């Protein structure tokens, strides 16, 4: 046998020795798929005994990639052994593969389960090889040397290949073997009342026996009351961060809320123990931890009065604003930037009928991009108001956003959610470097907004297509709308309904523009603003047919692009139609057959049962013949090659 496992390793671990870092062999690998979580159970052997061990999920990749498989000889680096329901369960938190593939060493027997914690190591010597191995180690304090001796003395020819592997490999530190403590003369084991040792948050898992964590509260949620089939209840959660950077959410229900709600304060450090671990609810919990702690009646939460400088106040993983452009819709991320503009709060009617506040502000960072940040609810009055005052007095503060949600409603923007936290001018290095960047030139640096409906940047990110390509390539069918430019000619404009009556009232910095209803003969009513007025606005809602050398299609043009195409305001045309229908028709006809560069937004939408591709004209530019010619010259040069 070319390698020796740490003798008695299994018994040592069961005995509570978690520092030995032994060499063991994986006898079996089993996938336990109890829940959505993938968990692997290994059968580890020290050549004489074997024991099941659970693999921490962060190591799942080792099994998946084949680094750890049946027969692998591994060194356990970080591991624990706890008692769960009278059984000793080993959990491996960190391990290293020494030999990925090796013949079975020894003839290990499953470790018998008893109630007592410690066992005497019964070496099961069945095979000749194991015998020899044991003999060499009987006086052994230095298994490393023994292994080497072993290699030189025993050279079974069929193991030649393995020998090759062995010569080149340097075993990781194999600590001297120490026999397990012999408790045979003691009585039954008493319950250990000593305080549980503090472990890193990253090591928490449901199979952990007794644990304690020391961490700082980074966020405290609101107390929420709910009502479900089981009756009334209340719940609140808070987030913890420890000195290793591990984060986890803690949730309390009902009576437990009363115990801890007032004790928990953001920024203070607590020692927490005896909670239960359950899978985290990814919908609400955006922390990087698959588990969540639920505190119970027996849980303990002790505030640590001394300041622990090893635990940071907050943990961020900022992304540059340019990354947001390609981020997935609804994903959660942290971002930091300088606030360059703040808009006033506007009341918004939500889908559930409730009214809330909304504020839009713009963040700029060194990546050359600006993004819109939408504040909802209380953020508008708290941080939003403060930022507004700072901007008004000419100062541009740095704002850090933790757990903002990406939205792709108009370009890409970030919105606050209930678990978002905003930090104005935080005392962190990223804020300082942003401040100096901004003050020394960043303020005037060119920056593209990724949040506007009309994507600026013109020719840089313009995709030119022909009309037929819209259908051929199935544009608009993916989750996101497609933005393209088409050079085409207006061939028909629908005139029966070309505009609608719109609300002229202002909501914040934007016009309401909702369709208004007629009251009697002279007044109009807008149900969003809940106001009546005499004069309404007229806005374009044009159905236009455009054509190029490949085909024709219908598009919808709204106010701005409508004015570009027709050259008149919607109101003027509306009046004209009322007065002189014939002249109106002629005017419209005279606008046909003009060529434009249409910037189109294409998106497939469901109307009842149908899927229809909706094309909107975002901008209609009169073709600039000079640049068009350049474009075509470029195309020509590509064709001939």
């Amino acid at each position, binding site marked *: 046998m070319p390698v020796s496992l740490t003798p008695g390793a299994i018994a040592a671990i069961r005995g509570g020795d978690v520092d030995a870092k032994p060499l063991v062999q994986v006898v079996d690998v089993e996938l336990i798929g109890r829940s959505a979580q993938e968990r692997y159970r290994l059968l580890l052997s020290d050549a004489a005994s074997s024991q099941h061990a659970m693999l921490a999920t962060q190591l799942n990749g080792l099994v998946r990639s084949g680094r750890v498989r049946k027969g692998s000889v591994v060194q356990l680096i970080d591991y624990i052994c706890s008692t769960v329901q009278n059984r000793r369960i080993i959990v491996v938190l960190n391990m290293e593969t020494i030999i990925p593939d090796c013949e079975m060493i020894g003839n290990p027997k499953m470790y018998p389960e008893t109630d007592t914690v410690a066992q005497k190591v019964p070496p099961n010597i069945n095979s000749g090889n194991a015998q020899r191995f044991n003999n060499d180690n009987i006086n052994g304090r230095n298994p490393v040397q023994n292994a080497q001796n072993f290699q030189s003395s025993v050279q079974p020819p069929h193991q030649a290949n393995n020998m090759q592997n062995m010569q080149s490999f340097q075993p990781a530190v194999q600590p001297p073997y120490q026999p397990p403590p012999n408790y045979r003369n003691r009585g039954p084991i008493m319950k250990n009342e000593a305080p549980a040792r503090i472990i890193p948050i990253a090591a928490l898992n449901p199979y952990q026996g007794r644990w304690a964590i020391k961490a700082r509260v980074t966020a405290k949620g609101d107390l929420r009351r709910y009502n479900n089939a089981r009756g009334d209840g209340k719940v609140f959660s808070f987030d913890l961060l420890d000195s290793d950077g591990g984060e986890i959410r803690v949730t309390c229900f009902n009576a437990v809320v009363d115990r801890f709600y007032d004790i928990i304060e953001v920024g203070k450090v607590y020692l927490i123990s005896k909670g239960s671990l359950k899978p985290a609810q990814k919908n609400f919990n955006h922390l990087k931890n698959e588990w969540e702690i639920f505190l119970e009646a027996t849980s303990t939460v002790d505030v640590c009065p001394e300041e622990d400088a090893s635990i940071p106040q907050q943990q961020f993983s900022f992304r540059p604003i340019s990354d947001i452009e390609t981020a997935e819709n609804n994903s959660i991320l942290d971002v930091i930037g300088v606030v360059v503009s703040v808009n006033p709060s506007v009341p918004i009617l939500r889908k559930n009928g409730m009214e809330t506040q909304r504020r839009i502000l713009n963040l700029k960072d060194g990546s050359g991009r600006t993004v819109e940040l939408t504040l909802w609810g209380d953020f508008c009055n708290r941080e939003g108001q403060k930022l507004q005052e700072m901007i008004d007095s000419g100062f541009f503060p740095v704002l850090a956003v933790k757990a903002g949600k990406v939205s792709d409603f108009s370009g890409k923007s970030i919105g606050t959610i209930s678990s978002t936290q905003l930090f104005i001018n935080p005392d962190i290095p990223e804020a300082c470097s942003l401040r100096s960047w901004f003050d020394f030139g960043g303020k005037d640096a060119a920056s593209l907004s990724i949040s506007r409906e009309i994507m600026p940047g013109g020719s840089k990110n313009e995709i030119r297509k022909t009309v037929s390509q819209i259908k051929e390539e199935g544009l608009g069918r993916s989750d996101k709308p497609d933005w393209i430019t088409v050079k085409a000619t207006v061939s028909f404009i629908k005139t029966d309904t070309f505009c609608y009556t719109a609300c002229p009232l202002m909501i914040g910095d934007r016009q309401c523009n909702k369709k208004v209803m007629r009251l009697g003969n002279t007044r109009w009513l807008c149900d969003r603003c809940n106001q009546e007025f005499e004069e309404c606005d007229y806005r374009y809602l044009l159905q236009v047919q455009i054509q190029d050398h490949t085909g024709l299609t219908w598009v919808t043009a709204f106010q701005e692009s409508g004015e570009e195409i027709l050259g008149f305001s919607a109101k003027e045309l509306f009046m004209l139609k009322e007065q002189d229908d014939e002249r109106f028709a002629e005017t419209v006809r005279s606008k046909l057959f003009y060529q434009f560069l249409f910037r189109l937004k294409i998106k497939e939408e469901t109307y009842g049962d149908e899927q229809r591709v909706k094309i909107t004209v975002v901008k209609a530019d009169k073709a600039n*013949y*000079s640049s068009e*010619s350049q474009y075509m*010259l470029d195309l020509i040069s590509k064709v*001939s090659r």
Partner: protein
Amino acid sequence: MDIIAELAMDTSNPAVFVNAELLGRYVGRKVRAVIQVIRNDGTAVIGKSTDEKQMIVKGLPPSQLTTFVEVIGIADGQNSISADKWTNFGDNFDTFTYNKLCQLANGEYQHLFL
């Protein structure tokens, strides 16, 4: 109801798109070129071709000439045209694109032009 009249195009004597460089190839043939007017003395116009070389256009220029003019006539030298048709092309003209057109029309896409 519109009556669509078929307008026959006279393709019997096409004018070749030229710049100064290409002019020499078509001496004695009907050519067309756009030039930038440098000097006009009533009997001839000294102009700059779209490839930045001097060109002389003989004939009777119209009374008002804009900065850019298209002339159609017979090439009668390495850098002169005897023009019988003058068309004002205004004060803004993309000479680069026109020059490219001349090159393409006399190069690989010659067959597309009459």
